[in-house]
């Protein structure tokens, strides 16, 4: 079944709802009808979604004009939803129904956005293909034999396939931006601390950030207005988190300066992606922007650094899954035996691998050589990047070195898959705002252009992206329309 509303952006649906051309219930129902495709959703509660849609309709009828009122939204299944399962695509959280809403969920309720359901992901957001889900294979709507990317693959496939007008994901090393690139979407990771992490099941706490997927920069900017808020429940929340004024409609790239790090356009970038990015650069230059090649040598250490820090934090964050209070539990004669059986059987392979790597990196005797060293390199990386902001408006690069790859294509070489995060990891290291937006097709599949701005520069980055989007002229980019 196809969904005619899938051709509309979130902003367009919001406008149609305001004009009473359709009801919030009709919109929700149209999307609910197709949520069972691509393995994008892990959980849908249609009744509840429709009830929320009716509540939104009542607000519309009362004359309320909040920007996304009545527009349904899909949620990555590692964000806590009261009364709706939150599994992180892991067997260890099978049957767990949170008693509380994440702060972003409360904000979406406040904005009158019905929740369509919970979307597929790599278990605990660990992966870049969504193939590490314990529950379902997730497919790329551009080519169902290919991966949507990950770890927020479900939220990307949902928007790309017309299953949801807009969605939320989480990004620890590129988990929003890479699937956005592979599915032809705009994916935005705001500055660390601008969106509350309260209720986001932690992976790498110092790197994790919730952010949106949309078909256009305007869509992600609109939902960012909802979720970028200071939150007293998150100690790392920024005091001035709400987004300031933005002028997306009149944004231009003319006179803007982009830095292109050589390290992010290396031979590791596949030729078709490279060609697409180079074409985009020529277009931007023609529109009055300048793009300079720069050297950021520490970026070549990004992946190695990330794969120490993120697993270290994860090994601690995942210590709470012991089968004592919630989720799955393997019974055994003693507590230690039950603990080992529960974690041994209910965590997937990749999760166990990262817990072990992280445990090692934090161990006495190895802490200095791994965790502490990685944090030092992180500091170096941030210093190198920060030195550019005086001169440049954004750092430009590909998002992913390749287009969507076949499902199972890296099963023989998981390290190669991990190596592909090198363009997106620096933003998490420094907490920078960054986004991926479509810049064309290569062999019929979307290519993502990556833009990163200075900390707290979210508004200017979104404006810049709106300007780039207009010059490139390829958004929204929909499978089947290309």
């Amino acid at each position, binding site marked *: 079944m196809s969904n005619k509303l899938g051709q509309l952006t979130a902003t367009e649906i919001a406008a149609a709802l305001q004009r009473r051309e359709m009801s919030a219930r009709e919109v929700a129902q149209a999307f609910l009808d197709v949520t069972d495709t691509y393995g994008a959703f892990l959980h849908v509660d249609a009744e509840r979604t429709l009830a929320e849609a009716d509540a939104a309709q009542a607000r519309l009828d009362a004359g309320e004009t909040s920007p996304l009122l009545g527009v349904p939204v899909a949620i990555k299944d590692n964000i806590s939803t009261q009364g709706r399962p939150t599994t992180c695509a892991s067997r260890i959280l099978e049957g767990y129904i949170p008693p509380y809403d994440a702060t972003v969920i409360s904000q979406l309720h406040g904005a009158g956005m019905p929740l369509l359901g919970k979307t597929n992901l790599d278990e605990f957001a660990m992966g870049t293909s969504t193939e590490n889900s314990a529950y379902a294979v997730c497919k790329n709507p551009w080519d169902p034999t290919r991966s949507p990317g990950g770890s927020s693959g479900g939220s990307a496939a949902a928007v790309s396939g017309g299953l949801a007008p807009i969605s939320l994901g989480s990004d620890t090393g590129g988990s929003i931006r890479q699937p956005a690139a592979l599915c032809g979407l705009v994916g935005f990771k705001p500055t660390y601390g601008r969106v509350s992490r309260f209720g986001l099941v932690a992976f*790498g706490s110092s790197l994790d950030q919730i952010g949106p997927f949309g078909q256009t920069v305007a869509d992600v900017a609109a939902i960012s207005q909802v979720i970028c808020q200071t939150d007293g429940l998150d*100690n*790392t929340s920024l005091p001035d988190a709400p987004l300031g004024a933005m002028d997306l409609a009149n944004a231009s790239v003319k006179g803007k300066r982009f830095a292109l790090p050589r390290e992010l356009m290396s031979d590791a970038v596949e030729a078709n992606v490279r060609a697409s990015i180079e074409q985009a650069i020529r277009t931007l230059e023609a529109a009055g922007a300048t793009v300079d090649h720069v050297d950021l040598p520490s970026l070549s250490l990004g992946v190695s650094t990330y794969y120490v820090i993120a697993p270290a934090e994860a090994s*601690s964050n995942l210590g709470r899954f012991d089968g004592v209070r919630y989720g799955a539990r393997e019974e055994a004669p003693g*507590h*230690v035996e039950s603990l080992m059986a529960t974690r041994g059987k209910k965590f997937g392979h990749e999760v166990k691998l990262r817990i072990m790597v992280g445990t090692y990196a934090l161990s*006495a005797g190895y802490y200095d050589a791994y965790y502490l060293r990685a944090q030092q390199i992180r500091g170096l990386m941030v210093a190198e990047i920060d030195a550019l902001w005086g001169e440049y408006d954004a750092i430009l690069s590909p998002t992913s070195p390749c287009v969507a790859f076949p499902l199972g294509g890296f099963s023989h070489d998981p390290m190669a898959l991990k190596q592909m995060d090198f363009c997106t990891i620096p933003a998490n290291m420094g907490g920078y705002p960054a986004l991926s937006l479509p810049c064309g097709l290569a062999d019929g599949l979307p290519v993502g252009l990556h833009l990163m701005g200075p900390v707290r520069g979210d508004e200017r980055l979104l404006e810049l992206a709106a300007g780039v989007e207009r010059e490139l002229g390829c958004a929204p980019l929909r499978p089947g329309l290309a």
Partner: protein
Amino acid sequence: MSEYRLSVGMEVHAELRTQSKMFCRCQVAFGGEPNTRVCPVCLGLPGALPVPNREAIQMVLRTALALNCQVPVDSVFHRKNYFYPDLPKGFQVSQYEETNPIGYHGHLMIHTSKGPKRIGIKRVHLEEDTGKILHLPGGGSGVDYNRAGVPLMEIVTDFPPDIESAEEAREYVAQLRQLLVYLGVCDGKMEEGSLRCEPNISVRRADSETLGTKTELKNLSSFRNVFLGTEYERRRQIAVLETGGTVAQETRGWNEATESSYLMRTKESEQEYRYFPCPDLVPLHFDRADVEAARAALPELPLAKLQRYQDEFNLSPQDAQLLTAERPWAEWFEAAVVAGGDPKAVCNWMNGDFARLLKETGQAAVIPGVESDTEGREPARMSPEILVKVAKLVADGTITGKKAKEVFEKAYMTGDDPASMVEGQTQISDTDFIRQAVADVIAEHPDPVATYRSGKGGVLGFLVGQVMRRTQGRANPPMVQEEMRRQLDETS
């Protein structure tokens, strides 16, 4: 038998008297139905995040300053990772590293029977308490997380330890407890576990430089047990060494009933806690001006008060110690002195009849309108002003000491003005009146008078008693005595 020296390191855990838990807003209280004071944060539900309790941080800062500690500019929270069912998150938020805790490199001066002694403090840090494992009546066990996340302050003495006797161990804990209660940061209830101490005890031959193998002692629920437990371990370890054995590094429990320690577990290899800075918590920043303001706002501490009471009020060390043992008691005393009371007289009334009556009635000494009792006891009606009035009636000879006890007790029970109780029955100090009464008694008792005049002075008491009887006990006794002796000697 050789000479041995004792070394005791002390770890004290104090539950802070905050309204809410360390990282969530759940209430802090004792007892109650299991798992009724819990929320996603203190249960460690997926996605929940900690927000530090400012009140708890201030309490640890004040304690650190009172213990003469250094305070770092930035202090981070670490995660201490381990698995246990009473630990909801799989890690305890704590503070690690030498100069990172809110307080480090301090000391506490304690007074002992051998004089004052400086006990070095290595660290004062903030962490969170765990839940409690309960054995269920029907078999199996459950976990109560009401205590999980309660702010816990850990105070660790220096290494090598300064404490060298069971008395010092007891005095350190007692005087540290007194300090914490003075600061209002802990209720100090050892029996309820809100103050827990774990001594690390070792002995070595007097000529040895290196410390012996230590044992850790748990379940010490009173100062007395700290003394008994430490002394028991000292003797036990010496006995082991004297018989050619070696002391094993182990954790031992104290059995109050048998007054002996028992093996709980042997210490295996060092636990691997994988400490690292907690990424969910931004570092605490201690602005120097704020630290100095906190230092200036500290109350007068027990040791300083003890000294001042001796210097300023000329009280004996014993009196001063009784008065300063608890801060509300000391403040009551000071209020009475401010109300015009003679310090020594106020002290005697407080440590005598007032203390006795409070004990008998289960009431608390409370300065009206200033504070309420932290234990929730009924406030006594006795105010500093009333006590001072009773003391003055005695001092100016209006009533006798014996009569005053009666008046004090009545005022304690009713809260009435003592002056109104002694109207019409005040002491008679009128010289003419007494002279006449004495003359009358001498005239009426020729035999005892003759006995006295024959040199047997012992009969004087009988004659004075007759005067008191005639005057219904209202005549001023010293004046009667003096007048009686004068008249008897004069006319002989």
